[in-house]
Structures are given as structure tokens and as C-alpha cells.
């Protein structure tokens, strides 16, 4: 087993065992979606219209809230120091960590999305469209969030600051995620918005690990 695949397996194991809290994000997602009708009323036509936006916002917030464990757990038990000392480039290691984090927190959100769509009166095609856009967009959110997690690592109460720093950077993903979902629901094929959404995720996958590795290296001294 190469070091990177070993790291991937370790991250998934740690996240799925007791104390990992991988599924709390999905629970948060469910709670947010449950709260929305209390705020805007149980009008099924309105919920159907704003449903994709609610699902996207819920997924955005849920993936943001799980980010604080992405690196800080490793710092607490000392394994971050070992990771920093290995020969593998730090950016690659961080990319693998972020991918594992997405597998354990982002992918469950994507899987939960069709079920939550039922609560929002979305039909099957719309539910599939939202799920597909979430599948393409949520990795980008995790990679962008990686930067915030690395920047606020050494702070005692970094969670709130991290949200403030990361949320503006996720605006493009949110715009094109909701836009491509709405386009698909409107009957037009997934066109340029979806392509741009995928591009944003890829850009995030390039910038995120590098910026985060600089932040960790420079923050260490």
C-alpha cells in the first residue's frame, strides 16, 4: 500500500469510527431542511420552487460546519507533525485528506439529497438534477474550505472565523450549482452552468491544497 492510499484508508477509518462524527453533517442537513418550512410556511408550490436553493444552502452549511475537524483533529493527536515530516509533498497529502473528508462528509450529503427532495416536493427529475449538481459541486466546497481550515488551525476559536473567510469564496459554486440545477429542472439539458460548476470544483482542487500547504508550513514556525 502506498503512503497516500494508506492515508486515505486511515482517514476514512477515523471518520467512521466512534468520535469521528461523519454522519453528523447529514443530520445537520436534515435539520436545516426541516427548519425551512417552519420559516417560510408549508406551501408545497413555494417549496418546490425554492427547493433546489434550500438543498444547496443546506449542503453548503453542512459541509462548512464539518471542516473544523479536517486538520485540527490531526493537530491535537500529533499526527499532523508526522505528516509534515514525510517526503510526500504536503499539498498532495492535504488533497488526499480533503478527498477522504469529502468521501465521509460530502458524499453522504449527496446521497441524502434525493430523500430530502421528497420533503420539499421535488419530483424525481428535479431531485436527480440537484443530486448531480451537488455531486459535482461539494468537492469544490471541501477543497475551498481546506484553505480556511489550514489558516485558522492554530486559533482557539477558529470555527466562526473560518466560516466568515470561506463563505465568500464559495459564492461562485453556489451560484452555478443552483443555476445548473434550475436549468435541468426547467427541461434544458445540463449546459454551460454545469460545465462551469465542474470547472470551479477543479480550480478549487488545484488552489485549495497548495494554499493550505503554504498556510500550514508558514504557520508552523
Amino acid at each position, binding site marked *: 500500500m502506498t503512503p497516500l492510499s494508506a492515508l486515505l484508508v486511515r482517514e476514512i477509518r477515523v471518520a467512521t469510527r466512534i468520535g469521528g462524527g461523519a454522519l453528523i453533517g447529514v443530520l445537520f442537513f436534515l435539520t436545516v431542511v426541516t427548519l425551512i418550512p417552519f420559516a417560510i410556511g408549508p406551501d408545497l408550490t413555494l417549496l418546490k420552487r425554492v427547493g433546489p436553493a434550500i438543498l444547496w444552502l443546506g449542503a453548503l452549511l453542512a459541509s462548512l460546519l464539518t471542516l473544523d475537524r479536517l486538520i485540527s483533529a490531526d493537530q491535537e493527536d500529533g499526527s499532523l507533525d508526522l505528516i509534515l515530516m514525510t517526503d510526500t509533498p504536503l499539498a498532495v497529502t492535504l488533497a488526499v485528506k480533503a478527498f477522504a473528508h469529502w468521501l465521509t462528509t460530502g458524499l453522504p450529503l449527496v446521497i441524502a439529497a434525493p430523500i430530502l427532495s421528497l420533503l420539499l416536493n421535488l419530483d424525481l427529475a428535479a431531485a436527480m438534477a440537484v443530486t448531480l449538481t451537488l455531486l459535482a459541486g461539494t468537492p469544490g466546497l471541501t477543497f475551498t474550505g481546506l484553505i480556511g481550515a489550514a489558516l485558522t488551525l*492554530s486559533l482557539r476559536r477558529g470555527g466562526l472565523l473560518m466560516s*466568515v*473567510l470561506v463563505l465568500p469564496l464559495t459564492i461562485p459554486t453556489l451560484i*452555478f450549482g443552483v443555476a445548473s440545477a434550475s436549468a435541468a429542472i426547467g427541461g434544458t439539458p445540463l449546459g454551460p452552468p454545469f460545465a462551469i460548476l465542474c470547472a*470551479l470544483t477543479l480550480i478549487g482542487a488545484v*488552489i485549495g491544497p497548495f494554499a493550505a500547504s*503554504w498556510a500550514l508550513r508558514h*504557520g508552523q514556525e
Partner: protein
Amino acid sequence: MAIINFANPARFLTFADRVLPWVAGAAVLVLAYGLYLVVGAPGDYQQGDTAKIMFIHVPSAWLAMMAWGVMSMAALGTLVWRHPLADVTAKAAVPIGAAFTLICLVTGSLWGRPMWGTYWVWDARLTSVLVLFLMYLGLAALWRAIEDPSRAARAAAILTLVGAVNLPIIKFSVEWWNTLHQPASVLRLGGSTIHPALLTPLLVMAAGFLLLFTTLLLAAMRNEIFRRRIRTLQMMKALGARG
């Protein structure tokens, strides 16, 4: 004098002391002349004198973006050369840039009330300036969150560069999302569409704002250096009291 010579803060301080009164004086003169031109400029045939708020609105919007550019260059100086003055520049530019962004937002919404009938619309250019303002505030929060100045400088530098890459993407996305604001009319391909009678006061005001920015930045940098000296002295004193 090469930029590396200013790595010595004392040398920068003498330079700043010598230059500041001249830059400040020039800023006052140019702004006064600009305001004189603005008063004499013709009002819009539909909007009347309300359109003159543009002479403050547009230069602050330019400076709001330029301040991020200055911070990005300073961020490179921090990360690549560990230039101590780059830290100071980046930190001093944050509140100034945020202030110009706020001026741009406030003047825009004051103009929007009589013209569009509402203080705020979710138009693309307004929204992207609002996002820029949020990012300035986030950056300021990051500066205040980390105690050690040089570590704070490096974290802020990384966020500044990430922002510099992301801001055009955000701007493009928001524009794609919704657009109502008039498109750029001064700096664009195919020449300016703005009439010279309005362009001259606008450019003079922009020069005045640029001088004002330089004055504020130099003064803020000087204050920041003093603040760091005080911090060091206090720490030495505390260390001496303990030992």
C-alpha cells in the same frame, strides 16, 4: 533608493516623515481643485445634480480594488522575501481598502434611492462590491485573530492571494447571475463613452483619491511600526520584570 533599503523600518520612518507632508498637501490641493471642477461640471439632463455623487463613487470603487492589488503585492513580499515592511503595508492597507469599499457602497445606495427607487438592489456590480467588502472584513478579522504579528502577516498574505485569484471569479459569477448596473464606461475597449466635461473632473478626483490613499497608507504604516515598537518594548519590560 532600492526597495530593499526600506527593510530597515528606521530608514522608512525618516522617508515617511519627509514625504508625508508633501503627499498630504498635494492630496488636499488636488481634491480641492477636483471638487471645484465637480461643482462646475454640468448636471445630467435627466438626473440633475444627483449624478455628481459619481465623482466620489467611482474613484472609491477604483481604490477599493486597487487596495486589494497593493495588498496582494505586499503579500508576495511577505511570503517570498519575508520583507518586514510588506507585513506593515498589508496590515495598514486593510482598513483603508475596507473604508473605500464602504464609501463606494454607501454613495451608490444614496444615488440608487432617487434613481432606482430603492437603496439596494441585488444587481451584479453592487453585489460583487458587497462581497469585496465582506472579504476585507474577513481579512481584518484574521489579522486581529492571531497574536504574533509575523504569523498573522503570513496567514493574511495567503488569504489575500487566494482572494486575488478568487475575486475575478466571484465577480464573473455574480455578473452572470444578474446584471442591471450600467457597464463600465471609462476604462473599456474602444475608448471612453463618458463626455470630456465629466471625464476631466472625474480623473482629477481619482488622482486626489489616489494621493489621499497614499497619505493614509503611509501614515497608517508609520503608526503600525510605532505600535510594533511599543509591543516589543512592553514585552522586554515584562521579561525584565520577571527575571
